[in-house]
């Protein structure tokens, strides 16, 4: 029982971090960024390259992955999303294509086989009869700190409030003096950064492989659909619902069912509450 609670809390914190970058883009830019999972994967490999192949300290690898993730987000906004702005389907198709292209690129550079990331911080801690690696504990604490930081940034700063404003009414934001394009750029940059950090943690939680982008993408989509848009609190709550659901189904039923309940939940919510449990009515 304690084991389930601890594993659930740890996994859910990570899921919240995975989802929040995706939620941001969807809320502010109304773009379903299907390449988001691929950022997560590429960031894992960037970390692997710098920290494990070149031997830089883990924190440097993590930061480099974050910075390069932000650059990928910015490039994607400027080269794909902005030119195709009017056409949502085209944006979604091209983000999916980008994901597949990135997967091929990673196979070319690093090969097809899965890789194990060395723990960012080695060691384990015993809580009751549960064993928790420092690695996972650090990932969860870092996720929480980043989420709290993001929450405060959005609520307390001019740029953060402007991001919220754009997500609710672009014309209203524009006539308030907010440069929509600039806010979109900032959002894509932050999202890329968060996705990359989440990617390193996720890769060290599971393992690194060229197809690992699918699972986090589905988790992110599930959290947005169930949590509704524009709500960090909603993201956090739903991340815990999904995280616990997975841990419980793995522990009590079968590890094979890991993702199945998540998908069932997506479909269920789409059918009964298209705006998500915490969603807002469009005005």
């Amino acid at each position: 029982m304690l084991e389930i609670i601890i594993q659930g809390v740890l996994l859910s914190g990570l899921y919240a971090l995975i989802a929040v970058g995706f939620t941001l883009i969807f809320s502010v830019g109304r773009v379903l960024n299907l390449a988001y999972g691929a950022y997560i994967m590429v960031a894992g490999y960037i970390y692997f390259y710098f920290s494990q192949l070149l031997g830089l300290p883990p924190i440097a690898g993590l930061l480099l992955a974050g910075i390069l993730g932000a650059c990928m987000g910015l490039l994607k906004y400027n080269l794909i999303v902005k030119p195709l702005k009017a056409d949502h389907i085209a944006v979604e198709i091209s983000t999916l294509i980008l994901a597949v292209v990135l997967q091929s690129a990673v196979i070319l550079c690093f090969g097809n086989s899965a890789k194990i990331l060395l723990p960012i911080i080695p060691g384990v801690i015993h809580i009751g009869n549960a064993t928790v690696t420092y690695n996972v504990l650090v990932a969860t604490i870092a996720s929480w700190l980043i989420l709290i930081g993001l929450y405060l940034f959005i609520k307390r700063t001019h740029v953060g409030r402007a991001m919220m404003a754009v997500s609710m009414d672009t014309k209203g934001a524009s006539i308030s003096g907010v440069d929509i394009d600039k806010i979109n750029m900032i959002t894509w940059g932050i999202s890329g950064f968060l996705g990359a950090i989440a990617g390193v943690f996720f890769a060290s939680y599971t393992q690194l492989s060229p197809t690992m982008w699918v699972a986090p993408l589905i988790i992110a989509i599930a959290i947005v659909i169930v949590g509704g848009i524009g709500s960090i609190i909603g993201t956090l709550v739903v991340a815990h619902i999904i995280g616990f659901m997975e841990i419980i189904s793995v522990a009590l039923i079968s590890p094979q069912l890991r993702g199945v309940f998540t998908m069932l939940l997506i479909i269920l919510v789409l059918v009964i509450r298209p705006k998500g449990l915490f969603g807002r009515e469009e005005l």
Partner: protein
Amino acid sequence: MMDFLEIDKLSAFYGKAKALHEVSLTVKQGEIIAIIGANGAGKSTFLDSIMGLTKTEGDIRLEGQSLIGRSTPQIVESGVGYAPERFNLFPYMSVYDNLLVGAFTARTDIEKNIKVVENLFPRLKERRNQETHTQSGGERQMVSLGRALMSSPRLLIVDEPTIGLAPKICIEIASVLKRLRDEFNTTIVITEQNANFAMTLAERLYVLESGSIKIQGSVEELKNDPQLTEAYFGH
């Protein structure tokens, strides 16, 4: 002689459709003018065009400086505040946060401007923490005007300030707009379907029909104009 706001043969387009036809008008500093027109006449298009929100031809000059080619945020920064037709508020943000977003280009004046706004609309002070999607139409109009004032505008443009509001609120809004002009020398352009209300507030009127100015003049001149009487006092 250069006027405060000069609009020169302004046309606006939605795709190929021309919604505004060579509209020209001038406004002096500290003046209140009203654009009168029925539904679909082009009032909102005209105000959106001043804000750089539509595709236009012609010129718009504020104190001699052309606004053409500037982005909407740059036009806000040049001193134009806009309270649009449907308010375009941020529904899940508090009244106070809505006002703060309005201060995006004027961050050094926030305290001063909040005082001005809450003094003009005491109700916004009482409702500071209320999310605007739960508010009445009158309160939303106040937030919308307040948000526009947070950028310290010298020109305030307001699209149908009283549409759908109770008479008591209309009077309150009108008196606030008058105070803004009298106390802060803000120049004001409003649009209206109701010529009666416009005449209680504005000094000069322009009548817009199908995207063109048909009649113009001071309230004194137009008060007894049979053309205007027929079309705009009918109801």
